[in-house]
């Protein structure tokens, strides 16, 4: 094996092998005494033991009898057991996302992207994947509530509504606080409301918004326009603290387009740079990254401008002369960026993130224009939100009006201002001053608790709706199930306040479609014409460069959580248990800082484990007299002096999953950081950051434990063989097809048994390490498709998470500025499967098509298969993870289960099946139609959802199939092929495209024959 010079490590504990640390590690590890009874008290244990003895005699009880009846007459287009797909849409933060809902016997069970939606093109993000769980969430609000007691819609219609309709005419004192909406129907209803209630006020608030981007466009263009980026046409992307590939509403499209430029077989490779405070998806994908505080990014932008002007003759006015940044690396990167931008005029994208101030956005828009990108890689559409005030201004105005007594009636439409409003706005007090308040929402949340009335809202899949996506697609969402709890939609509620028009007529007017076009739009989910027109803006004069105030001791940045966003998804167990892309953390949020910052704060600079659990130090961060105490995560690559916080946690009334304050069975998850977030800024200086006396236990799916120096060395030695990578210069696409396979040399392999031959089909998969950005969509898609249970924080700490698909994350290189390596790992479907051979009851067997089948009802649970699996992809049901479904209240959650996939009982092993149910469905269809299966017709859930199309599935017996070509390509290799397991999964090696000037003196990664030094 090649053990090259790249130093790989996985956590800070690995890197900092101080004597103190070693001593501590030794001490910690030596005492692995039990601290608890695995969560069971003595009393509880005795109870259970007694009960189990008593219940032993009840074991002869039978299953409950259920009678099923066939349809007397079958509804049209309904074939029992045959899934139907409906186009629909989801909306988050005022941006629609086109989806396709898979429905079985009238119940939606899975969400895919809408192939006709130009952003989705069939892929989605984690939130869309998890929306099914939200639909069937037992904690969703089920009834109308008044004063905290259950009520009915009839009561609302009779008593509640009249107080609001009484204001018809003047509308004085009536106000609406709505979450951001792009729905043309809501817009039309709202316009009608303004007619009937002339003085009514409409405030729109989102805690996470792109208002800075809009403000930046206003500065640069005079009027707001929405930039649309075409990453496919770009050769260079420079991300300035951006969320281009992660939280951006068009990230799915960006990822797909950019992936096109990251596959060397396409003949061209793009290059990406990132400068920012957080090490996230953008930093992970970038060829070069320079960690810098968010506040310093504007200086960096100015430096790039300067270099373009000075070295490359770009005329910039006014030039930001004299701007500079600290650090040689950052300066070198700025030079490289300037060079690349000048060399690729019209083929680059410069983009900043929502945390960056409007001025930075404005300057980058100008820079894009000067580089000739506008009209090519950057185009513009209308910005529907151009006219509205910023979200924080709107909320501040509402609070001011309420405090001034100008509001007497308030209608809150979704949102959770009581939880996520900036700390300087006391929304709760303002709401309390208002006489009549009503909130409509999916959940009875913190804000509902403050209101007189609460009305349950329909889920997106329960009602008609429409929305507009980031790029202007007009999306129609049709209901795919009748409202489960008799809820109503927002437009329904609003029209019920109206006198004049019916919702139907308003909607018809809003969509502007005749019957035929409407039918087509409903079917497609997208209207043929875009809702937002393209515009060609004229660039206004750019404001002068103002260097950022730089007296920050510690910079605090806020960002929506990659899993639960601003907290609205806090009650989704799938998302809570999803390992964060970078931290691999579940069920918590943390303050991310780098080791130097932690050292300065007097915190531990290496991980601490107690008997195998990771214990984090905590810090108290104080801003304007408000403080929060959060656990610390030592994040390599986080900018020094910058502390990153995630929003969305610490919800006090989220539900059984997300936590209810004071409820022992539903502890509050994570820490609410909103109390120190002010409306003034997106990143701010913390007045004080001090070490707190408490510690906090974190549940992570990687680095569950402390890693000693031997573990670190072992990781280092083998990673270049597991995750193979090379720089573009060291690799030739049409060179040796076994280039990367030769990273590991081994003696000729011999099989103990007769080798299997494939019959009919040989299913295989390629996973592209070059384009995988680690966004996690595949993990949730797999969970949804395959009925994978969640296990909870305690069990994640015990390393019993159940994900069939996981993304292993490793760092390499410098501690301050590491490189990221991610690797998707699912079952490799080995032809010589080591798991199959050792199962004593033949519960895991091989199919003729090469699938490593798992026979759940044969499995007795010896777990030998999992021990013998080299890839550790097998997951065991150590307990009954479905116990919550036994609760009558949770009956509804069963509807989310995919009927095509067995729900596994306690005590059996499970693992990825390549979505065998999808394979079978297509096989049956093709057999019925007497036609061969087309390549690409079968798509497993992970492959379908992947925005960058990094997962390709198909038939290896078909030499023309995409997967066969991928497997034959020069980048392909099989992980641990030297074990002669003959995996059907091939990985396509990661190719980096570093700037020649920034190349490290020694080559990165394994370079096959190029470094024939040892181990052959």
């Amino acid at each position, binding site marked *: *094996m090649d*053990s090259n010079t790249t130093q790989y490590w996985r956590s800070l504990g690995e890197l900092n092998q101080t004597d103190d640390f070693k001593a501590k590690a*030794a001490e910690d*590890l*030596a005492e*692995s005494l*039990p601290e*608890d009874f*695995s969560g069971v008290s003595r009393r509880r*244990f005795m109870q*259970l*033991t007694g009960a*189990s003895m008593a219940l032993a005699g009840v074991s002869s009880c039978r299953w409950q009898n259920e009678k099923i009846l066939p349809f007397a007459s079958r509804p049209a287009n309904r074939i029992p057991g045959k899934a139907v797909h409906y186009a629909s849409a989801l909306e988050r933060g005022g941006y629609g996302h086109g989806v396709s809902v898979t429905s079985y016997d009238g119940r939606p069970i899975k969400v895919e992207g809408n192939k006709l939606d130009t952003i989705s093109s069939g892929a989605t993000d984690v939130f869309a994947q998890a929306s099914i769980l939200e639909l069937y969430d037992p904690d969703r609000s089920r009834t109308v509530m008044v004063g905290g007691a259950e009520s009915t819609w009839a009561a609302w219609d009779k008593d509640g509504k009249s107080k609001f309709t009484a204001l018809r005419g003047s509308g004085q004192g009536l106000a609406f606080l709505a979450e951001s909406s792009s729905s043309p129907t809501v817009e039309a209803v709202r316009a009608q409301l303004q007619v009937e209630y002339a003085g009514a006020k409409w405030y729109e608030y989102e805690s996470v918004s792109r208002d800075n981007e809009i403000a930046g466009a206003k500065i640069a263009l005079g009027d707001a326009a929405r930039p649309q980026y075409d990453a496919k046409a770009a050769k260079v992307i420079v991300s300035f603290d951006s969320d281009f590939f992660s939280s951006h509403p068009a990230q799915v499209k960006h990822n797909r387009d950019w992936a096109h430029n990251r596959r060397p077989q396409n003949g061209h490779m793009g290059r990406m740079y990132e400068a920012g405070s957080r090490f996230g998806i953008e930093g992970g994908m970038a060829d070069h990254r320079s960690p810098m505080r968010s506040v310093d990014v504007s200086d960096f932008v100015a430096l790039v401008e300067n270099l373009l002007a000075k070295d490359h003759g770009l005329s910039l006015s006014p030039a930001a002369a004299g701007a500079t940044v600290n650090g040689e690396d950052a300066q070198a990167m700025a030079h490289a960026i300037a060079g690349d931008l000048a060399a690729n005029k019209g083929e680059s994208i410069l983009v900043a993130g929502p945390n960056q101030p409007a001025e930075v956005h404005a300057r980058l828009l100008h820079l894009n224009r000067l580089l000739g990108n506008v009209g090519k890689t950057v185009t513009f559409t209308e910005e529907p939100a151009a006219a509205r005030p910023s979200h924080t201004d709107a909320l501040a105005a509402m609070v001011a009006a309420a405090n001034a007594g100008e509001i007497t009636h308030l209608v809150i439409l979704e949102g959770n201002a009581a939880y996520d409003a900036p700390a300087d706005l006391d929304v709760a007090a303002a709401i309390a001053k208002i006489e009549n308040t009503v909130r409509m929402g999916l959940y009875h949340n913190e804000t509902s608790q403050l209101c007189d009335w609460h009305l349950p809202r329909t889920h997106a899949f329960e009602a008609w709706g429409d929305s507009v996506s980031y790029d202007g697609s007009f999306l129609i969402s049709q209901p795919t199930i009748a409202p489960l709890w008799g809820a109503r939609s927002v437009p329904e509620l609003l029209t019920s306040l109206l006198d004049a028009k019916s919702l139907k007529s308003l909607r018809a007017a809003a969509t502007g479609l005749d019957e035929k076009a409407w039918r087509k739009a409903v079917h497609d989910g997208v209207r043929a014409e875009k809702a937002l027109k393209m515009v060609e803006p004229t660039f206004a004069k750019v404001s002068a460069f103002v260097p950022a105030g730089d007296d920050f001791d510690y910079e605090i940045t806020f960002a929506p959580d990659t899993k639960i966003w601003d907290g609205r998804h806090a009650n989704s167990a799938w998302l809570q248990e999803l390992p964060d892309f970078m931290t691999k953390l579940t069920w918590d949020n943390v303050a991310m800082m780098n080791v130097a910052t932690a050292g300065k704060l007097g915190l531990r600079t290496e991980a601490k484990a107690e008997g*195998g*659990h990771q214990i984090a130090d905590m810090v108290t961060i104080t801003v304007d007299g408000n403080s929060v105490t959060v656990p610390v995560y030592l994040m390599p690559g986080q900018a020094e002096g910058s502390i990153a916080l995630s929003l969305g946690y610490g919800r006090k009334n989220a539900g059984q999953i997300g936590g209810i304050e004071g409820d022992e069975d539903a502890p509050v998850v994570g820490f609410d950081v909103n109390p120190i977030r002010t409306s003034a800024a997106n990143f701010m200086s913390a007045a004080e950051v001090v070490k707190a006396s408490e510690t906090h236990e974190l549940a992570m799916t*990687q680095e*569950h*434990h*402390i890693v000693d120096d*031997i*573990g670190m060395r*072992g990781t280092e030695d*083998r*990673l270049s063989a*597991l995750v193979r990578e090379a720089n573009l210069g060291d690799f030739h696409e049409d060179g040796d097809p076994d280039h990367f396979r030769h990273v590991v040399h081994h003696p000729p392999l011999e099989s103990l048994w007769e080798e299997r031959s494939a019959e009919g089909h040989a299913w295989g998969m390629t996973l592209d390490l070059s384009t995988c950005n680690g966004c996690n969509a595949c993990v949730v898609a797999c969970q949804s498709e395959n009925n994978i249970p969640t296990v909870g924080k305690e*069990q994640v700490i*015990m*390393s019993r998470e159940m994900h069939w698909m996981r993304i*292993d*994350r*490793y760092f390499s290189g410098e501690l301050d500025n590491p490189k990221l390596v991610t*690797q998707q790992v699912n079952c490799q479907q080995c032809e010589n499967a*080591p798991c199959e*051979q*050792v*199962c*004593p*009851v*033949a519960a895991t067997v091989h199919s003729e098509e090469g699938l490593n089948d798992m026979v759940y009802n044969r*499995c*007795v*649970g*010896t*777990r*030998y298969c999992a*021990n*013998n699996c*080299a*890839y*550790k992809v*097998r997951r*065991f*049901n*150590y*307990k*009954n993870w479905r116990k919550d479904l036994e609760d009558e209240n949770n009956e509804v959650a069963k509807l989310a289960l995919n009927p095509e996939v067995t729900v596994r009982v*306690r*005590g*059996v*092993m499970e693992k990825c099946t390549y979505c065998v149910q999808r394979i079978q469905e297509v096989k049956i269809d093709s057999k019925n139609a007497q036609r061969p299966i087309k390549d690409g017709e079968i798509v497993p859930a992970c492959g379908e959802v992947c925005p960058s199309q990094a997962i390709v599935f198909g038939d290896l017996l078909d030499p023309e199939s995409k997967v066969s070509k991928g497997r034959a390509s020069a980048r392909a290799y099989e992980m641990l092929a030297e074990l002669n397991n003959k995996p059907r999964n091939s990985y396509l090696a990661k190719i980096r495209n570093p700037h020649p000037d920034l190349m490290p003196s020694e080559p990165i990664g394994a370079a096959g024959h190029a470094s024939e030094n040892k181990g052959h």
Partner: protein
Amino acid sequence: MSSQYDLQIQNEIEDPTIRPKLIMGDSTTYASLDDDVVGIVEGFVEKTPMAWYLMIATSLSILTMLGGIVAYLIVTGVGIWGNQSPVFWGWPIVNFVFWVGIAHAGTLISAILFLLKQDWRTSINRFAEAMTIFAVCCAGLFPGIHVGRMWVVYWLFPIPNQMEMWPNFRSPLLWDVFAVSTYATISLLFWYMGLIPDLATIRDRATTKLRQGIYAIFSMGWTGSSRHWHRYEKAYLILAGLATPLVLSVHTVVSFDFAVSQLPGWHTTIFPPYFVAGAIFSGFAMVNTLIIPIRSIFKLQHVVTLRHLEVMNKVILATGSMVGYAYAMEFFIAWYSGNPYERFVFENRAFGNYWWAYWTMVSCNVIFPQLFWFKGIRRSVPAMLVVCIFVNVGMWFERFVITVTSLSRDFLPGSWNYFKPTAFDYLTFLGSFGLFFTLFLLFVRFLPMIAISEVKGILYKQNSGH
């Protein structure tokens, strides 16, 4: 009870011209031997010692706790233990191998030493065989309850069924089922057959009808006629012949559970001999650990003499050295193979985050038994007791090291983890001792713990002085 033997007589002197007596005490006769051994059983009836009641009460309490845990386990799932990913096998399997290993001494002593005509075995074989049976009971418990769905564990047996589903004959776990169940059956038969003449002795000496009746049933009409003896000895020889390969095969097959897998640290060809040596090592240590207090409590020092213990200690020294050699050879091969995963596993064992387990194992299994090179230590009862207890501890740790350290860090570092046992792991292990000692105490109470008829044969030989 007769104990008129001379403690000063040294029967362990290695003088080739004198064949030392195996059974000491000039006055030891057939009758006194009956009195000494059967007297224990009878003595219990007349006045059962309070200590026995206390001990059986403790053992039964622990056994009951085990029952409770198993019931809770069946209701809740194997998740009550610390098993996780990637350490899918934790303490239950460690305990299984530990007990199976202990179960090796009995058959080795009764079968192989019988065939090799090692007469000294007669004083301890009954005892060792009983220990074997009880250890197999404990061992058998674990694979049964550690599977995810205990209620279908019978699928491991090749029972003809309507589905025509057979177990997977390629799986070492299946071989294990055959190996352990065959071993348990043969050991039980062997033990019981050996018991028959002695049960008849108890029957014949019985003073109450009940006792006579019960022992009569179990002695199967033994009269001691020469025809009985003739058949008995033939059958005994055949069983010994059958049991002999089992001594080697059982732990070989148990080692296959590990060796046949592809896991670094498990996948080694040295495992079969290494496991067998380790099993004999641990079995002998356990026999010594138990018999040392027993022989002094029941005053059997003239039957189980210091010479016996010394011979046992020599076997422990020999097998301990083999185990030590195996440890060293594993390291050498790991290095010599050039396999990076293999190398890492062994480096990690000794110096990684389970170093404490590894060095506990090495000091208990390799270093302490080496003290038996010194005659003084080999013959000092307290010293050998300490060493034997260390060996017992060390052999448990050996199985822990093999099972847990190898699993916790296998191929992909992203899946590595540190295993942490729960309270249930400790309690289940403790509970298995409850089972063992309950059976053991019942054995001491109701059955002759020395093979009287065999010892009589030795007595005859040494008295007649051939």
